């Protein structure tokens, strides 16, 4: 029975995640169009709502072209690594408290492991392999340069990302994500207690997901398409999907760690309880994630790209010291205030 519940949870969450990712692509295109005073895709279905479906059909029908001297196996493996790591990261994120169905309490989180935060950091650090290997196996200079840039960038920002979370862990006293969310009840969200941690983590998340203004690995004017220059058809589609799932997962992470996760402030005072509250909490979690995704998109279309040396010096000379100072300050505050 437990296994069955787990399977149902996995299938549901994966399905919803994939659907959301498909529509985030549409959202991005519509928002971009609005910012640039264009109309954007609005032909397929009402207001372009069936556009993701058309895109998928197009990608599946396309021919899969592999460069002649490419390393065939790794060329196939790289997009699979990218998408599976992007998806598995979501496994530990609690998207709600617990729900009671047919007299059985079900926790709204796929895997409740007691090293949740470390699991996420490990998964994000593995994500770089997809990009690096695609760059190397394509046997093309643009791909290789894109892969190299991305490895350097992800290595640099992983450190400040990991250090930014330590403040949150110190406050919660646990690596469990559900415990971290529980600690943020009411308005005691970690964004209030850890403003510097929030800012460093968010900036690092932008760099980790290769999103603008840190999308140097795929800077179009310089490197054509970056690491996925030599990809086409469904394999390109997988990279595309991975990029957007990374964005959704990063938003979910920021929500969980800093914006109170599924917490609704003053829910108990409003007299809500039971399954209704749980459903509302899941709704609150989704709303927070969606707002952050919108923030990611708006940033992409408003801020110019960094130069490569600026990116590196920002990572090592600003973000890293800030994150370390944040740990020191948090430690002092915990020692003095308790």
């Amino acid at each position, binding site marked *: 029975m437990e296994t069955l519940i787990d399977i149902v949870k996995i299938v549901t969450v994966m399905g919803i995640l994939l659907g959301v990712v498909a529509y985030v692509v549409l959202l991005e295109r519509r928002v971009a169009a609005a910012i640039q005073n264009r109309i954007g895709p609005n032909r397929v279905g009402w207001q372009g709502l069936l556009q993701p479906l058309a895109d998928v059909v197009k990608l599946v029908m396309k021919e899969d072209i592999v460069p002649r001297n490419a390393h065939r196996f*790794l060329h196939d493996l790289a997009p699979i690594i990218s998408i599976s790591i992007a998806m598995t990261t979501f496994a530990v994120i609690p998207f709600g408290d617990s729900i009671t169905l047919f007299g059985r309490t079900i926790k709204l989180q796929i895997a409740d*492991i*007691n*090293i949740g935060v*470390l*699991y996420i*950091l*490990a998964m994000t*650090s*593995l994500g*770089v*392999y997809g990009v*690096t*290997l695609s*760059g*190397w196996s394509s046997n093309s200079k643009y791909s*290789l340069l894109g*892969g*190299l840039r991305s*490895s*350097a960038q*992800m*290595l640099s920002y*992983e450190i400040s990302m990991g250090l930014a979370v330590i403040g949150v862990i110190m406050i919660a006293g646990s*690596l469990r994500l559900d415990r971290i969310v529980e600690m943020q009840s009411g308005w005691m969200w970690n964004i209030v207690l850890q403003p510097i941690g929030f800012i460093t983590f968010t900036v690092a998340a932008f760099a980790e997901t290769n999103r603008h203004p840190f999308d140097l690995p795929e800077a179009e004017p310089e490197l054509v398409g970056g690491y996925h220059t030599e990809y086409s058809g469904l394999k390109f589609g997988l990279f595309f999907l991975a990029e957007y799932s990374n964005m959704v997962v990063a938003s979910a992470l920021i929500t969980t760690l800093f914006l109170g996760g599924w917490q609704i402030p003053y829910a108990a005072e409003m007299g809500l309880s039971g399954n209704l509250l749980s459903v509302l909490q899941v709704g609150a979690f989704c709303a927070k994630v969606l707002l952050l995704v919108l923030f990611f998109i708006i940033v992409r279309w408003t801020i110019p790209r960094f130069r490569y040396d600026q990116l590196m010096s920002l990572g090592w000379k600003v973000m890293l010291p800030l994150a370390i100072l944040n740990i020191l300050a948090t430690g002092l505050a915990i020692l003095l205030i308790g």
Partner: protein
Amino acid sequence: MDFERIFFFATAGVAVVSGILTITRRNPVQSVLFLIVNFFCIALLYLGLHAQFLAIIQILVYAGAIMVLFLFVIMLLNLGDENTLEEKSGYRKYIAVVLAAVVLVQILTVVAGGVTGPTGTAAAGFGTVEALGETLFREYLLQFEATSVLLLAALVGVIVIAKKKVI
């Protein structure tokens, strides 16, 4: 055979095979990839011993950070023809063979003597972050700090050597 035994032998088998492939592949990128597979197997073995923290750190530090750095350097050098990388000095090879033989003899004598680790059920909370933290920061605090200082000194040394002009 119970599940634990099958799990152990499957993982250990893959670990050994990938370890051998790491040192026999001519292409350095393939070597690195097999080493990553090896690290994953070791992480799985830790997980089998209920050492969750150690397992995740194995992936986070070795597979996620150090091997990415290795791959990065190999790609940056972009070693085209692997066959030109033949060993130039001969005497090193002989010293290496002798040293490897010594280590092999040591391992064989220990294994032949019969290894008996501590047996029985582990204490509650064994291998968790809390237990590890208590041990590191209470029992072995001095050793832990000494190692940290050593690592810091190594880092500073690397920067001094890499920089032409130290400010």
